[in-house]
């Protein structure tokens, strides 16, 4: 805060003329000619400067005549050109003197003149004298008078600090306020309105709330990226391809927010814009009709090109309020003839211009929908049995079916590009990231495909259907994420640190290292089939990330977990990856050379990583530290098998799982412990999805629940499906769900949400 001088600059205006301003102050300090504040600055409430006490210097002042004195004493209401301090300025506004005059008029003449005499001599005194007089009067006062004084003082000492201090200080004060108080402060008066609507303040507010939960108020606002509306004819493809929204794990920043105002919004509503940067829409540089009118229009356009941050904030706040209040508009898409099993939507694709939804169903088709109109654009036929899983990006769609195959489609024209065969039973889940595709199957295996080369290897370990897979780049974003040349020679397409979660009907979630092709961790806790998992990367400093213990320490459960994971090791030789014929055998892989149990190489299954307690003597020893750079083929399995545990940089991974045991569990990925269990569904949970702000779950009980993840509290229950809800996708302002009855429902929490099809079920507000 470099505002120290600012005060002195305005202070001079506040010198009050109700007393003659003392001149030529004598300050006993050998003040160097440094730019320190002027000694003569007047301060709050017209405090006169210090007069040297021991040298009784009288300040020269012009003696007003008695009449003038009275005038001054009684009527300080600023004649023009007169300087008044803040207090007297306000008093003049309030007509205090008039009231005083009236009470004086009621008195007999002689009393009136004596009182006037007292006032005027007080008024004529210097500040030091005034102090003395006041002290004297105070000692004369009885309690009743003192109480009058204290009452009066409480009233008159009030002051608007924002008129007193420069804007920088006022803005600093306002920056400490929350959005609610800031909004209220804007309604105080014009000056406050100007300050409290400051764009920088609201930008900070947006930064604190959008895409993250504010640590102070607990509110987090959705990102709500608006689609770029390009002028017709212009080639408006952004240079960076948009990520499919459902799979984006990197953090979005508010700088990506598009604040340009398009013709669809009324510019008259945007009266203010404080960002001076010219917009691409501004016609200033463009060849156009020149003339005074177009110049004016250009100016207007310039003024209205960006939305104020306050507007951005409030738009999102309304959406978030809708989420919290459970206010939504639901639309239904009909078309599938049997149960919908999987879906995904993308709103920020560079092309086409509308948001796209793709669903897969037991009726053996996948359908592409326009989410704006609710129209079905295309039906993809080819699978001979139910489609159980799908994922798409801007180029391709991959579906997994009960007919044992996976198909790669060009969803824009409906062509099946490729069929992947390999599973011996139906495919129930899949996920791809770049060139790596993972699919889980009824045959209890997970296959990892290289989409570029078509190679594939198998992960064995589950004892029942594999219902969900989730790829995790555990090294993404960390500084040591460098492709190692030696590793890339042998396994060219899997980055170091690529991991895979898989959830199975056997009730276990496994974490696999795709480079080692081994299971490195198991998550025990669910007592039913695990149907769905979702990995979430939380920012550092968020609620969960600093907790050293699980937030809901279920000690019995943890103990049981601990026991089971230690105890069951040797009984589970299926942890070992048996390289399949026809798949790549990792060069020099320990298991191609050494039987497990060989001295020097602990059998993998025995050393299920259990996290040592923090007070364990070896916890901080260097030997325990996982190798910083990931060596895919070194023999130090012990080091590799421990996930990066300490000195974690980057986001905190948590895993959310939904199971047919009616619960949803939140897992600490690194410790392998269940942090929280969400109870509420009365039947099994088929699907979960989550973002930084909320968690949603779809259940066999035909409901969808919206949860506050941190508190494990159910916020809203959405009822409407006629069958079990089998799949769900969460967006910034909507949920899309598919049901066994063949319906797809869109639950929109947007600001001015309207049902997508007027023919389908109408608006329902909970």
């Amino acid at each position: 805060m470099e505002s120290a001088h600012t005060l002195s600059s305005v202070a001079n205006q506040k010198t009050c003329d109700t007393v003659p301003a003392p001149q030529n102050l004598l300050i006993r300090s050998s003040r160097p000619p440094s730019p320190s504040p002027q000694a003569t600055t007047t301060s709050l409430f017209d405090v006169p400067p210090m007069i040297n006490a021991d040298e009784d210097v009288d300040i020269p002042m012009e003696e007003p005549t008695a009449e003038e004195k009275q005038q001054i004493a009684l009527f300080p209401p600023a004649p023009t050109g007169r300087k008044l301090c803040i207090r007297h300025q306000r008093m003049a506004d309030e007509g205090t003197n008039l009231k005083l005059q009236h009470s004086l008029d009621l008195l007999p003449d002689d009393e009136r003149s004596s009182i006037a005499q007292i006032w005027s001599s007080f008024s004529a005194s210097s500040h030091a004298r005034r102090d003395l007089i006041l002290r004297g009067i105070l000692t004369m006062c009885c309690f009743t008078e003192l109480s009058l004084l204290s009452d009066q003082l409480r009233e008159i000492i009030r002051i608007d600090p924002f008129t007193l201090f420069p804007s920088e200080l006022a803005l600093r004060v306002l920056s400490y306020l929350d959005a609610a108080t800031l909004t209220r402060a804007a309604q105080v008066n014009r000056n406050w309105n100007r300050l409290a609507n400051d764009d920088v303040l609201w930008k900070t507010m947006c930064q604190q709330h959008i895409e993250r939960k504010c640590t102070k108020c607990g509110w987090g606002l959705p990102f709500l990226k608006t689609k770029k509306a390009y002028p017709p004819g212009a080639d408006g493809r952004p240079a960076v391809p948009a990520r499919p929204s459902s799979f984006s794990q990197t953090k979005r920043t508010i700088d990506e927010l598009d604040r340009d105002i398009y013709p669809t919004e009324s510019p008259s509503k945007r009266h203010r814009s404080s960002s001076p940067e010219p917009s691409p829409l501004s016609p200033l540089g463009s060849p156009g009709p020149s003339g005074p009118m177009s110049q004016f229009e250009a100016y207007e356009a310039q003024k209205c090109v960006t939305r104020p941050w306050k507007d951005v904030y409030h738009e999102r706040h309304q959406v978030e309020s809708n989420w919290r209040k459970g206010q939504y508009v639901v639309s239904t898409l009909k078309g599938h003839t049997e149960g919908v099993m999987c879906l995904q939507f993308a709103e920020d694709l560079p092309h086409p211009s509308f948001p796209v939804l793709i669903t897969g169903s037991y009726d053996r088709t996948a359908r592409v929908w326009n989410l704006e109109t609710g129209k079905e654009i295309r039906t993809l036929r080819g699978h001979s049995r139910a489609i159980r899983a799908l994922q798409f990006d801007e180029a391709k769609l991959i579906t997994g079916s009960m007919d044992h195959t996976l198909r790669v489609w060009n969803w824009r024209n409906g062509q099946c590009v490729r069929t992947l065969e390999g599973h011996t039973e139906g495919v129930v889940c899949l996920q791809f990231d770049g060139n790596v595709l993972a699919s889980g199957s009824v045959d209890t295996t997970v296959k990892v495909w290289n989409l570029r080369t078509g190679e594939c290897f198998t992960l064995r370990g589950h004892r029942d259907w594999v219902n969900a897979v989730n790829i995790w780049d555990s090294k993404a974003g960390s500084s040591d994420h460098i492709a190692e040349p030696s590793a890339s020679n042998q396994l060219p397409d899997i980055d170091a640190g690529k991991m895979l979660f898989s959830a199975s009907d056997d009730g276990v979630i496994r974490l696999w290292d795709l480079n080692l092709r081994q299971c490195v961790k198991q998550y025990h806790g669910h007592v039913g089939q695990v149907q769905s998992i979702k990995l979430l990367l939380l920012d550092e400093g968020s609620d969960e990330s600093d907790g050293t213990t699980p937030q809901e320490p279920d000690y019995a459960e943890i103990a049981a977990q601990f026991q089971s994971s230690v105890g069951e090791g040797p009984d589970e030789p299926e942890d070992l990856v048996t390289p399949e014929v026809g798949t790549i055998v990792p060069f020099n892989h320990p298991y191609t050379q050494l039987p497990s149990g060989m001295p020097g190489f602990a059998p993998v299954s025995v050393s299920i990583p259990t996290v040592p307690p923090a007070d364990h003597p070896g916890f901080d020893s260097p030997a325990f530290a996982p190798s910083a750079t990931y060596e895919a083929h070194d023999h130090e399995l012990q080091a590799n098998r421990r996930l990066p545990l300490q000195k974690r940089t980057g986001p905190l991974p948590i895993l959310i799982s939904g199971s047919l045991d009616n619960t949803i569990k939140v897992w600490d990925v690194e410790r392998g412990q269940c942090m929280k269990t969400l109870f509420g569904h009365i039947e099994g949970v088929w699907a979960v999805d989550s973002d930084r702000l909320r968690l949603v779950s779809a259940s066999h009980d035909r409901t969808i629940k919206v949860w506050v993840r941190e508190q494990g509290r159910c916020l809203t229950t959405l009822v409407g499906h006629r069958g079990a809800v089998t799949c769900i996708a969460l967006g910034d302002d909507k949920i899309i769900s598919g049901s066994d009855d063949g319906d797809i429902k869109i639950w929109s929490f947007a600001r001015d949400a309207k049902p997508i099809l007027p023919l389908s079920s109408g608006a329902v507000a909970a």
Partner: protein
Amino acid sequence: MSITLISKEGAQFLVSKPVADRIGVVRDCAYGADFWLGYAVATDDSMGITLANVTSSILSKILVWCEHYKDMEPLVDGDSNMEFPEWDMAYIGHDMNQILFVLEAADYLHIPGLLLLACKGIADVLDGRNPRGICDLLGIVMDFSHRQEVDMDKENGYWRWFLHPT
């Protein structure tokens, strides 16, 4: 070494150098002279610096803060989300006028840390009040026209919802 600070009323406060160093103006007086004139003004205990705009009561309050922070760095900058230590919040209190006096004195005396704390103090007093309450607290006259008020109410209507978020 210690420095005598003289308040507006002429009261003398004897403070040690680390305490006085928290006050930018005093620091400037002591070292600024050294820099500009080639010698230090404060060579012995007799040095007195008059702080003409600061009353004794406020000065003594400010010196409490300086004393507390003589060995550690106060929060000086940054993020409005940063939490002040409990001691600070207890120190600044909830008396608006006192905070204003402290703020003004901190500005005058160049104490950035205290300045921020005072701003935070004011914000905390304002926190949760509605516009009418702020006006009453600070004696502000609303100067909106009726039309503006209606518009504003429409625009800022959400704040009612803010009051009772579930």
